[in-house]
């Protein structure tokens, strides 16, 4: 099912509030079997992070060494492209994490 551009627009209004934040990995996993939108990207890592303000959010972890992908490691939020879309669909950007070095 294609992604509605309105949904992408609505989500990005709150995504921008999450940029530039620092937090700690509460848990992580590496996904090998994914829905069609992410199938070409497997394996990819997803982390659950507690931000400094106590808010807990999910995101993919990118540009990391395995040693950085552990519970308790610090990460920061960045803006990246999210999954694959069809040629007629809106490209979606989303919040992902990189290690805080």
């Amino acid at each position: 099912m294609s992604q509605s551009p309105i949904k992408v627009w609505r989500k990005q209004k709150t995504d921008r509030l999450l940029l530039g934040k620092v937090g700690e990995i509460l848990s992580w996993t590496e996904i090998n079997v994914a829905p069609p939108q992410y199938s070409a990207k497997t394996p990819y890592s997803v982390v659950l992070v507690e931000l400094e303000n106590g808010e807990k959010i999910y995101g993919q972890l990118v540009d990391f060494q395995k040693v950085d992908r552990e519970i308790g490691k610090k990460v920061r939020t960045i803006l990246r492209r999210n999954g694959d879309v069809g040629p007629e669909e809106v490209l979606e950007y989303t919040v992902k994490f990189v290690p805080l070095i």
Partner: protein
Amino acid sequence: MNSIIGYYSTQFGELWDKSLDDLFLEVASGILEELRIETKQLDAIFVGNMLGGVVERQLLLSAHLSELLDVHIPIYRTEAACASGGMAFHSAHEYLKSNPKKTVLVLGAEKMTDITASEITQALATAASHKEQSVGLTFPGVYALMAQVYLKKYGYSEEHLAAISVKNHAHGILNEKAHFRRLISIDDVLESPYVAYPLKVLDSSPISDGATALILTNDPQMMKNRNIATILASESATDTISIARRRRLDEMESTKVAGSNAFKLAKLRREDIDVMEVHDCFSITEILALEDLGFWKKGHGGAQAKEMATYIESGNNLIVNTSGGLKAAGHPVGSTGIKQIGEVYLQLTQQAKKRQVKNASYGLAHNVGGSGGVAVVSILGV
């Protein structure tokens, strides 16, 4: 008292020659014929199904059943992801509590194998929150996040998880309706490919087709000369859809609440339970279930699992997942909750054949929807 007077199950597995309607019809006519009950003796039908709208693009299943069974009675459909069956049973029990002298059919059915692995992964992920889905987190992925926290916090390894699957496969070979009937070893589990680290293919319940049915009644006439189990409690509880919004990741609050309410209502102690079917969609889930239901202390589950403490030949007093669990019996999601109750019913009425647990008089079934957003805990007795 509300009682169960019969149970029927189709084969579980990849049933390529059967549609969702075929499964409904097979299981409904199967139980009615076996118990010699006619549709005109039924007052209502409760049906558990999760994915009809997503996989088959078919809703209004009540009208399907009306057509298939030629009935015009009320039909209630429940959707609670993998607890759809448990909620159908729970709803039927609630209905009977307020309606004397009634008899109802409770069905669970799911058709899952008509689409690809990636598509069914997407379909099942609809039971995760929008935020979880939008970062590519799958249903196994959400459980993997919980497993990681559990293993790290209590110092366990993937081997502790693997023992759950080994035990459930050892039970599954005794169940002629099970999807998988073969023994597996710890090494088989550890060498199977990862689905979502640290959970592997053999930590995970399979994608299965299947249907199950129960007849419930509070009409004393209908109970005569039948194998009866009494419903002592069926309690359900809910929790947040996102695991990020929960206080702890190493427990399921919904299971704790439903379990504690069910035990209070049934006026039983944990040690009174002889057999139990718990939700093992992944190996970690069975460990959390035994802890959150109050049978094992929090954090002790990994060690208990490794000792195969609940295996039918362990010599212990509590045997878990004699059906093979979701892991080996298969997990047609809408029918799983009904199968669990059905297995406990077979055990308590001495009809469990090769897997019969001796002198079982109280049993419990525990069904989870999503990552713990819904839990149903039911206790039966004879």
